[in-house]
């Protein structure tokens, strides 16, 4: 159990940011909320530098794609307070065309590769990132493979065609 309850974390956030922090929930006891890209760096800075909360560790940055939503591209931050043994998850949703969000590299050096990976797979541009290029996929790749419009299976593959199986 953490030293600070999720409610206390959320209360501090709403006191500071008001309606900029929205849709809080606690799936599996993990405090989750949404914010906008205008506020994300302020929220992260506050969580990291608040003397009581001290979310000093950035566990992960990743992305998600919900094509049916109005703002389909999501960026998800996982923070961990090693002092208080509490975690939070922050979601920011962006437009599909040209998704841009400010970088967190100035807060955590470790955000560098996480943001490169998120760019690599989802095409999310992190503004102010010192070296935003692909990290895992081949450099020649022209698509962002975790976007839903990208077919999962390789279209060049011939050995799984139906006629090989009498279909």
């Amino acid at each position: 159990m953490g030293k600070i309850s999720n409610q206390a974390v959320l209360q501090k956030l709403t006191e500071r940011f008001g309606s900029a922090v929205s849709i809080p929930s606690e799936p599996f006891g993990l405090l989750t909320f949404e914010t906008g890209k205008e506020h994300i760096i302020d929220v992260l800075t506050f969580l990291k530098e608040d003397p009581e909360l001290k979310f000093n560790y950035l566990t992960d940055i990743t992305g998600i794609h919900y094509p049916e939503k109005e703002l389909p591209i999501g960026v998800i931050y996982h923070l961990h307070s090693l002092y208080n043994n509490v975690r939070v998850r922050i979601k920011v949703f962006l437009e599909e065309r040209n998704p841009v969000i400010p970088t967190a590299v100035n807060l955590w050096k470790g955000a560098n590769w996480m943001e490169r990976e998120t760019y690599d797979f989802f095409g999310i541009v992190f503004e102010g990132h010192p070296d935003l290029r692909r990290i895992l996929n081949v450099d020649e790749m022209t698509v962002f493979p975790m976007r839903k419009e990208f077919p999962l299976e390789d279209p060049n593959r011939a050995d799984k065609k139906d006629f090989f199986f009498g279909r």
Partner: protein
Amino acid sequence: MSDIKLAEAPPGIEGSGFFATSFEKVIALARSHSLWPLPFATSCCGIEFMATMGAHYDLARFGSERPSFSPRQADMLLVMGTIAKKMGPVLRQVYIQMAEPRWVVAVGACAASGGIFDSYSVLQGIDEIIPVDVYVPGCPPRPEAILSGVLKLQELVRNEPLRRRNTPEYKELLAKYGIQ
């Protein structure tokens, strides 16, 4: 009397004190029984190859005594395992560094077709980037299957014309892969 079986001599003319046959057949015979393998192992098929090299299955019985870990002295490139697209240029480079004549065995489903990894990040068969002589199916293939693949390759080598590597067909094949 030992029961070691020697390779059968190619057809030729024999008399007292001499044996005449064509150079081509002798070279092909010699090549086929001294294929130096270059293992390019990336996953579980590589583990099966280790068993194949070991004392129990003993690849050395078939003339592949010396696994070469430099492509320049190898004849037979054994590609074992999933080749990610990012690994593709490396594999190609290894193939280019090998001296002619060179042969390639694709061991296992992944090297042959991508296997279960039908995905954006995995090469769907190494024959997309380099020519392949023998495919060994299996996921992973048993050591017996790998040995069978090597024996099949020996058969190819034994019957390969000496000048095959100079033919326009062969040059065309390499050109198709953008090599040379």
